[in-house]
């Protein structure tokens, strides 16, 4: 039975911020998976890990995106100085409060020194407990030559596979079964990315049909449930969004950049919308869309396909060396995204003390301004509770584009589809 829009969003909102990960833990209690064995949970930090691998091994990859403003941080604050970002405090709080009990593995992708060192803190917390979780710092290569970085990345992924198998005391999955399973996992995650992109494209045309907050909940919920379930949600949601709902407002259209790790509080996303902006793209849950396009399906070497996808089809990100993508610099790629989403401007919203995002900002901002794209920037923390100043800043930004744009004819906010179908009228 199809769920109503309200039921879908409500379910996602609950799952997105269930900091006990109840849904994932319940899933783990299910029967063994044929060909893969007992179920397991692998928590991972932002931004990207190849979730297909975990899925093919019979596990559920669970995104640990911090605690936002939903948990009082007591123990976590005792481990960090005031000038360290907020995300790891929440993660430590989760770990030390027992919320991550039942997790069998933790993967810390290379994104910054704070997340890197957090992997060592988890090692220390756990000590030499033989029943402890498998802890892995996944050193994503910054060299993108297949025979160099590609080989190393393959070895890194293999160490994840070996480590989890050792932790579970399980034998390697038989080769033929593994190839079949991994190809199926690739297919499912390809479907996931495709459905996400389809809804993102719909939102680009009709942003009022699904608010940025609602979309955020849908994407974040996807990090805490099996991909098969998330694909169903996306399928149902897309069907709902094909019908008109809501009412368009005279908002500008913006892309948010810099929020790929520590997530903004929901209040901040709401504030941006209420200040007169449609958020038509962002990097909030970038890991879900890290690979642009599909990972090759049905190959005899699916692990190689996963590696190639990272080397060849990664999105642009502050955590990735700029020489990586073949299709241009970060400025060029962000400019292209703005144009593709028909955005009027970019809001650089980065967490305080986030070196990767904040060190990218000056050149990105300069590059966009040179390209004639308006920008504004501010910092937040995942538990920021006051948005008045940000609302005023964003409101002024929105007004400046709406009211005083020197070339109003070049504004791209009015969707072409809308003009053609005359929906506004």
């Amino acid at each position, binding site marked *: 039975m199809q769920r109503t829009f309200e039921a879908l969003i409500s379910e996602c909102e609950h799952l997105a911020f269930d900091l006990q990960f109840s849904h994932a833990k319940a899933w783990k209690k299910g029967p063994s998976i044929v060909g893969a064995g007992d179920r397991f949970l692998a928590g991972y930090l932002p931004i990207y890990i190849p979730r297909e691998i975990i899925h093919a091994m019979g596990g559920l990859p669970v995104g640990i995106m911090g605690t936002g403003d939903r948990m009082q941080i007591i123990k976590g604050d*005792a481990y*960090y*100085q005031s*000038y*360290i970002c907020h995300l790891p405090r929440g993660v430590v709080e989760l*770990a030390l*409060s*027992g919320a*991550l*009990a*039942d*997790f069998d593995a*933790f993967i810390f992708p*290379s994104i*910054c*020194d704070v997340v*890197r*060192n*957090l*992997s*060592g*803190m*988890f*090692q*220390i*917390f*756990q*000590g*030499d*407990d033989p029943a*402890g*979780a498998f802890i*892995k*710092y996944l*050193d994503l*290569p*910054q*060299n993108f*030559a297949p*025979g*160099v*970085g590609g*080989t*190393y990345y393959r*070895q890194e992924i293999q160490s994840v596979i070996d480590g989890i198998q050792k932790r579970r005391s399980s034998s390697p999955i038989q080769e033929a079964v593994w190839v079949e399973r991994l190809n199926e996992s690739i297919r499912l995650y390809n479907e996931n990315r495709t459905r996400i992109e389809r809804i993102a494209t719909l939102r680009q045309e009709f942003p009022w049909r699904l608010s940025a907050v609602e979309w955020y909940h849908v994407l974040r919920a996807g990090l805490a449930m099996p991909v098969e379930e998330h694909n169903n949600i996306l399928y149902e949601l897309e069907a709902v969004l094909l019908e008109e709902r809501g009412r368009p407002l005279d908002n500008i259209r913006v892309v948010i950049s810099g929020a790929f790790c520590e997530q903004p509080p929901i209040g901040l996303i709401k504030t941006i919308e209420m200040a007169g902006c449609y958020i038509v793209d962002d990097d909030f849950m970038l890991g879900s869309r890290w690979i642009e396009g599909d990972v090759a399906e049905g190959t005899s070497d699916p692990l190689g396909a996963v590696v190639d996808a990272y080397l060849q089809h990664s999105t642009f990100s*502050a*955590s990735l*060396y700029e*020489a990586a993508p073949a299709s241009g610099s970060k400025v060029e790629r962000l400019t292209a995204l703005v144009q593709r989403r028909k955005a009027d401007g970019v809001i650089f919203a*980065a967490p305080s*003390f*986030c*070196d990767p995002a*904040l*060190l*990218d*900002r*000056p*050149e990105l901002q300069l590059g966009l301004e040179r390209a004639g794209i308006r920008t504004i920037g501010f*910092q937040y923390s995942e538990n920021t509770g006051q948005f008045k100043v940000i609302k005023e800043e964003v409101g002024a930004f929105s007004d400046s584009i709406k009211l005083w744009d020197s070339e109003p004819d070049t504004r791209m906010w009015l969707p072409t589809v809308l003009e053609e179908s005359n929906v506004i009228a």
Partner: protein
Amino acid sequence: MSKIVAPPPFLKSAAKAAAKPIEVVKERSMLLQKQMLGDLFHDLTTAKDTGRKVVYTFVPGNLSELILAFDMLPVYPEINALQWGMRKKSGSLIRDAEKYGYSEDVCTYVKCDVGMFLNGNIGPTGEKLPPPDLLLLSYTGCFTFLKWFENLQKLYPGVPTAMLHTPYAADGVITEDMVKYMVRQLEEDVIPKMEMVSGKKFNPEKLSKHLEYAVESEDWIVKMFDLTKQVPSPIDAYFAGVYYIGPINAGFRGAESAVEYYHQLYLEVAERAAQGRPPVTPEGELEEERFRLVVEGPPNWTHFREFWKLFYDMGAVVVASSYTKVGGYFDGGFRHDPDNPLESLARYCMGCYTNISLPERVNMLEKFITDYKADGFLINSIKSCNSFSAGQLLIMRELEQRLGVPVSFIESDLVDPRYFSYANIKNRLDSFFQMMDQRKQVGGRHQFGQRPHDSASSQKRSLLLPVLQQEAMV
């Protein structure tokens, strides 16, 4: 008239400020270092005339021997920044970078470097530094390095970048796969770009020769720092130590001149040790070594002299520090290998202090505290440096629990003078010294090797168990 050995050159002002007239006797090693660095800066300022190519690179994971093998000249942006800091001129450069758009929150080495660029790339000696011919991004132990050079790529458009990704030794081991990954990068990207820029063919024999010199220097460095195990320590291994590691971190590791320097330095320190003399401070020889400390984290550069004075006024001597290992950790046994040059460079990079895991850092510091008979452990936590700072409070907690040693924690920054609060640091240090003093009065020096409290790791705390269960187990 008292007669003292000169403090390091960067503390000349301190010597001038001493109350009594003094006759400064410069040790030979000081003259050697001054000559080496003076020559380097002269070579840099004349590089465009002489046609020598200039490589910008970083201290941790630096490939000095490879740069020397191509007869290129190194520029280390961190060293420029810290020298600006010591000259108390980094603040305005940082503010210029912030006006350009850099956040107050980010690394001040980066901002100081960008500010220097915005002001005409005048180096700390007052002479204009040449622009890079090659950006050698040795991405070792610090994610910010990557962002830093991405920014420099924009400031120096068209300059080639050689990227060397050093895998993080997260599990406390360096695997063959990691070594091969680095060697392939050296062979397929770094060396070809150095050949292209320098116009010279790579000469493995020349590299091996420089590695032989590096081994000799590394031997002398280890021997020299080993002398601080003696009571009293003949030198301060942190405040003077950062001066002593200058040459190997400024491009001279692998140079013949560095062998001479470190041999001479060892002889001088060994002589002090043989005479049982305590360290030299900016105000003369320390009267009495009262406290022996191990320090984790970089020093503050903008108030270096005031910072050091807070220690030597109380008779505190740093006998070992992690910061002197950022450019290479040789105490652990690593030496460059002239017979396996590229593998050896790879292993060197991966063994630098900031590239090792948090548990390994704890183990290393535990060994320092024990081996160097330290009375206390201090962390100077740096706002700018997440690589060092994230996790330091857990390091401190672990060491306190493992060894029962007095610990303390202060905060400052590398080169942003706004983050040096003299009163706060003094308060913390005064309490720390009092704590150590009381400990000594009650029970003498800490009995090393005892484990008064179980550490978090030895309690086998598991992330799989709710905290209440864990507490019940404890």
